[in-house]
């Protein structure tokens, strides 16, 4: 029991420490979290978990499948039935191990979740409206466009709704997506710390042209962004 208590305490402190590590790591560049970097970190953390469990179980299965091969068709298994104490122990111990692992993963997941959901107050807000089958973007100055250009290093929050069916605003390189629905407003935010050309794609089935419902997203230096926005506003 004391060993178990110790083990649990160990688990909890590991959780707290790694949560701390996540919080520190995510803060770079402009001082705000970079959720897609936290995502990669968490992903690798979880993968290690999967590799360890998978490896142990697979090796155990292979060893038993080889070792306990019957030498004659009349041979029978020799395993004993468990007594009550063993039965309960073999249920409680794995339950405790799995639960500890679950809470550990949940704590890490929760930390990254906060990165994803806590929008910096200074974030630029862009309104997204989805239609079958295109997105429309409204910038803070009222300019509407059908492609996205974002200033480098400036957090952006998208407030999204749909005019017809359910769509989904998917940004694969930023490791985030969220459904865009009629009658509801959803949000996601990103921290574009790299200058890049990428795209937005629809990620919820919305009919015939679902597979081609996409538009470009460019992250450009602030000056270039200002020029672009002025041009779009003029064309408006």
């Amino acid at each position, binding site marked *: 029991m004391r060993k178990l208590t110790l083990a649990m305490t160990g688990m909890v402190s590991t959780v707290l420490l790694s949560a701390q590590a996540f919080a520190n790591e995510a803060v770079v560049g402009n001082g705000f979290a970079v959720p897609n970097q*936290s*995502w990669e970190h*968490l*992903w690798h953390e979880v993968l290690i978990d*999967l590799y360890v469990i*998978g490896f142990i*179980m*697979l090796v155990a*299965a292979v060893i*038993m*499948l080889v070792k*306990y*091969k*019957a030498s004659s*068709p009349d*041979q*029978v*298994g*020799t*395993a004993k039935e*468990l007594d009550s104490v063993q*039965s309960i122990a*073999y249920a409680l111990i794995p*339950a405790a*191990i*799995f*639960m500890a*692992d*679950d809470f550990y*993963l*949940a704590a*890490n*997941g*929760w930390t*990254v*979740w906060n*990165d*994803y959901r806590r929008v910096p107050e200074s974030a630029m807000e862009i309104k997204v409206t989805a239609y079958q089958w295109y997105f429309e973007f409204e910038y803070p100055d009222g300019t509407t466009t059908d492609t996205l250009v974002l200033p480098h290093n400036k957090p952006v929050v998208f407030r999204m709704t749909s005019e017809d*069916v359910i769509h*989904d605003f998917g940004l*694969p*390189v930023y*490791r985030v*997506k*969220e*459904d865009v*629905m*009629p009658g*509801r407003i*959803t949000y996601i935010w990103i921290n574009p710390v790299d200058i890049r050309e990428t*795209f937005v*794609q629809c*990620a*919820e*089935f*919305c*009919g*015939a042209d679902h*597979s081609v419902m*996409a538009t470009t997203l460019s992250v450009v230096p602030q000056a270039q962004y200002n020029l672009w926005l002025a041009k779009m506003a003029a064309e408006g």
Partner: protein
Amino acid sequence: MSTPTTAGHHATPAWKEWILTTDHKRIGVMYLVGSMAAFGVAGLMAMIIRLEQMNLGMQIVSSPTQYNGFLYFHGAAMILAFLIPGLTGFAANYFLPLMIGARDVAFPRINAFSIWLFYFAIILALMAFVVPDGPDIMWTGYPPYSVTTAANTSMYVFTVHLLGFSSILGAVNFLVTVIYMRAPGMGWNQLNIFVWTTIAAFVLQLVFIPVLAAAVTLLLFDKYLGTHFYDPSAGGDVLLYQNLFWFYSHPAVYVIFLPAVGILFDVMATMAKNRVFNYKAAVYPGIWGIVAIAGIVWIHHLYVTGMPDWIRLGHMVTTLLISVPVGILTLSLWGTLYKGAITYNTAMMYACSCLYLILLGGLTGIPLAIPSITLHLSETSYVHAHFHFIMALFSAFALFSGIYYWFPKMTGRFADGGLATLSFWLNFVGVNVTFWPLFMIGKEGMPRRYWNYEMFADYQVMGHSFEWFHHIATYGSWIVAAGMLLQTINFIYAAFAGKPASLNPWNSQSLEWTHTESPPGPGNFGDTDVVVDENWSPYDYSK
């Protein structure tokens, strides 16, 4: 056609005897034939989907709508017409009464009605290919799309209704059968694990199907009667449907998973001539733990729908906790091999492959339980590969294991042999070749349900384009197709000309092997009723 018998009556022709049968074994076989037919057509759809994704641009379908129709049929048929009826229809019908020493189910005529409903549902589902406006709404049928689409949503709704009725009637029937018709002396802790998993699956069907029926009925009303349950412009809510739908459809995963695990336990204990490790833990915290948790995890299907944070995080915890009952069940499965005396045959090879599939499918689900990870992975081919491994492949391979295991009981002949071994390896290698590439590109964002992925044209994973991975996956699907085709030929050949088997060729201790003919005649157990003593166990090999 009918020939007069000595008594002067006309003997019933064989086809009529089958169609009008109330015998649980024949009904079981009819479920098997119907579900395998659905599997064949849905598998064909899968081949077309893979061919279409092989390269950018339109490859084989004539329009995106046609592609969406194929996706709809593939999903709906595989889940509703193959996996659920194959496991709870065929396997439960044929073997559950035999395993508990019952002469039939409690309500044989209701059972016959269930199979009729099932066949009508299959016919209705197949009509999607005949009518000009077959459903294109995926098996999930989310509104508002399913309401605003020009296609025929009512066919989807009525197919779900028919199958739902069929399953509810089956559930009542089998629960009553197990509660009241066990052989005298048979206590609850002497049941085969397959019996436990089946009744757990039926409890889930009974509790949750009405919710799905309500969800799709409201969909029908919205589309054809002008109501606004899911229409936000008139005070409805689009997410109401998704909540109701997944409140059933997540437990439905266990309706498929549990009987598959049950078959696996029975095959492995028999082939390893061993007791089930920690039987009570497998049954109570394991199987019933899954049932208990089944109804409180559905939000993980709605992680990207903008649900409040506290619900998403709450369901992250409950979803992760699924690993507790599943872990206990897995430990029992592994422990059943410990100090066994394992004989290898086709049934056992499929069972061994299931150990790999449950690990791979189960573990790849752990990242998806975490909403911050699913914010990216949702609706990608990673999810698609994950649920194919755990739900489709694990359960289908367990079902195949069961078919090989029980084949001598159903036909008096073995289905094992060169063709069986060859088709097993083709299937096993093929599914890995098909779905591993989808994990890899899915992690980088390859979307599900796309026929084209032009926007990802510049993406590289390990130095290769998405197209390259789709090529591999498509070749994999051809390997599986060859395996399945050979296996079907093997089943048909073996049923008529396979090697004759003795009554209990695997030396099993389970009642369906020790107390019946192959195949069992009407009434199952001849003239003497089955009685078991308190020390009897279907897994007792040590004496």
